[in-house]
């Protein structure tokens, strides 16, 4: 009986790890989870390790190509942007209401702030979303790939349709606007 309990426990913990690792393999970028996870400091425990993918030249193409034919949302944010915290909190609520919503978060913070980005993501309860972080000090090409017309104001949100067209919006997005878009 004791063995059976242990077996069930092991199976369950294995299942918990699966989504994290699987998502990590889907991306073609480096994964830093093994080196940089600081889950110990997080007040909110997440069921799987947070993936924080380095966003470099070509990453936007990767994000888009993985979603061909599907609608999705890309949100640019930074730990240094006070309204962005409100925005993250909003995405936590929206994701809870619409679990199938595909939201990609990209932090524009310098890689030196990697630990802090990770802490904020976990604290704000949005670790279940896909996360990237700017990985190049030369940020202009990264911004340009996302949108040549964007001047870096944050938060910045892009609504991608299933056919690949996008609409960009700066500032905090109101939840009812997102719900209207979802409908």
């Amino acid at each position, binding site marked *: 009986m004791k063995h059976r309990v242990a077996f069930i426990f092991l199976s369950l913990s294995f299942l918990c790890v*699966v*989504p994290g*690792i*699987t*998502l990590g*393999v*889907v991306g073609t970028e*480096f*994964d*830093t*989870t*093994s*080196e940089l996870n600081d889950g110990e400091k997080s007040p909110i425990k997440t069921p799987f390790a947070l993936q924080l993918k*380095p966003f470099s030249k070509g990453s936007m193409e990767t994000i888009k190509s993985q*979603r061909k034919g*599907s*609608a999705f949302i890309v949100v640019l944010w*930074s730990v*240094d*942007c*006070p*309204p*962005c915290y*409100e925005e993250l909190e909003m995405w936590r609520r929206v994701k809870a209401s*619409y679990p*199938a*919503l*595909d939201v990609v978060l990209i932090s*524009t*913070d*310098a*890689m*030196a*702030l*990697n630990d*802090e980005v990770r802490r904020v993501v976990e604290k704000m309860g949005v670790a279940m979303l896909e996360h990237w972080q*700017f*990985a190049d*000090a*030369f*940020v*202009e*090409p990264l911004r*340009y790939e996302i949108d*040549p017309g*964007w*001047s*870096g*104001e*944050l*938060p*910045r949100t892009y609504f991608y*349709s*299933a056919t690949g067209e996008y609409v960009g919006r*700066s*500032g*905090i997005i109101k939840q009812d606007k997102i719900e209207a*878009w*979802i*409908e």
Partner: protein
Amino acid sequence: MKLDLWFRFPKSSVHWIGVVRLMLGIGLMGASYFALANSHNATRSHGHMAHTAESVVKGPANIHQATSVTASFDGQGRLWAVWIFGQALYVNYSDDLGKSYSEPVKVNQQAENISSNSEARPNIVVANNGNVYVSYAQNLEKRFSGNVRFSRSIDGGKRFSAPITVNDNREMIGHSFPVLAVNQQGDVYMVWLDSRDKVADQRINTRAEGFIGSSVYYALSDDEGLSFQSNVKIQDHSCQCCRIAITLDPHDLPVILWRHVYGADNRDHGMVRFVSKSKLAAPMRVTDDGWRINACPHHGPSLSIDKLDNYHMVWFTQGESRKGSFYAHSTNQGASFSEPVKLGDGSLPAQHPHVLAIEKNVYVVWKSFDGNETTLYVMRSLDRGRSWGRPTVIAKTANASDHGFLLAKDQDAFVSWHTVDQGQRLLKLDPVMFDDGTAVSTLSRGNY
């Protein structure tokens, strides 16, 4: 749009042992990549209010590998520079227009986390008597908290005093984005963004919308930077993440320009001038672009005032009325402004504009990125901003760069530009550059 279109299953059917090995290998590669990137430039930010991470910069302090280099000419034509290297602020100078620089002098002997980015950056001004004054923002442990700091040299930049904290509210809350001005009288003004009123409001108020933005404060030193008088609030509800502009008018008094939040979320610009040494006129709203947004533009305005008291300003907006970077002037101390002139040809965003007026000549610098390179443009007016020549390309870089800043030395205009690839440069704006609109620049490069 149907919700089921959104759902995406994670791709599965992977071989687990292979996955784990792959992850380990990729993880190590990733870790070494970041170690390299960070050691190259740990404190470089992305143009917003980044707090400085633990520094790992190596080697002797050097202006060309520094961050947030800010330069200023003194009355004798000596170019002074303040910059951040690791956890220290340094000052040095150049007597040959940026070709070579003096040995750097460290300002803070005790290591500090110094705000190092293009908006919240150190400042340097030199008084008539030769005193050198510097300001910077110190980041504290808690995010969005810090102190505005000041130090002076009374021996021509050989040694700097132990930095003092100028904000007299010492809570671990936001005091940042300090800027400095010193007038002919020797009065030193520091202006910064302060969150003490926001924090106080949050303690007593539980209303949903909360206190909007930060507050603009200033402090005056009339004892040559030995001490500062009590902090004075200029106005509540400034934007929290944009550089403040400060300059002196022909009456030898400061005029201040900043991004302000009007109403719930209208991010325009406020301006205030001093009517005497420590008396302010009423703050005015000087832009109305209809940029209703709760966001951090990280894009502060710039102001220059000519000897006839004409105000020249440049700013960035994404408002309903206009989008981009703009120039306008005022002949009545900011009461009204000319029709805004859009910078650039509209094909690429014109970003981080800076303005300088020297007599009748007005210069505006900005940068644009075309997908490969960042280009620094300058345009010039010979008639106090009434008409403008074509924009001229003065420099380019294919790597990270700071904003370009205009500087005056007598009748000559220069642009100070720091780039990762070329280091610190001083670009002289020769009249010939503006005649045919072609890309000519006379740049001086430091020895590095």
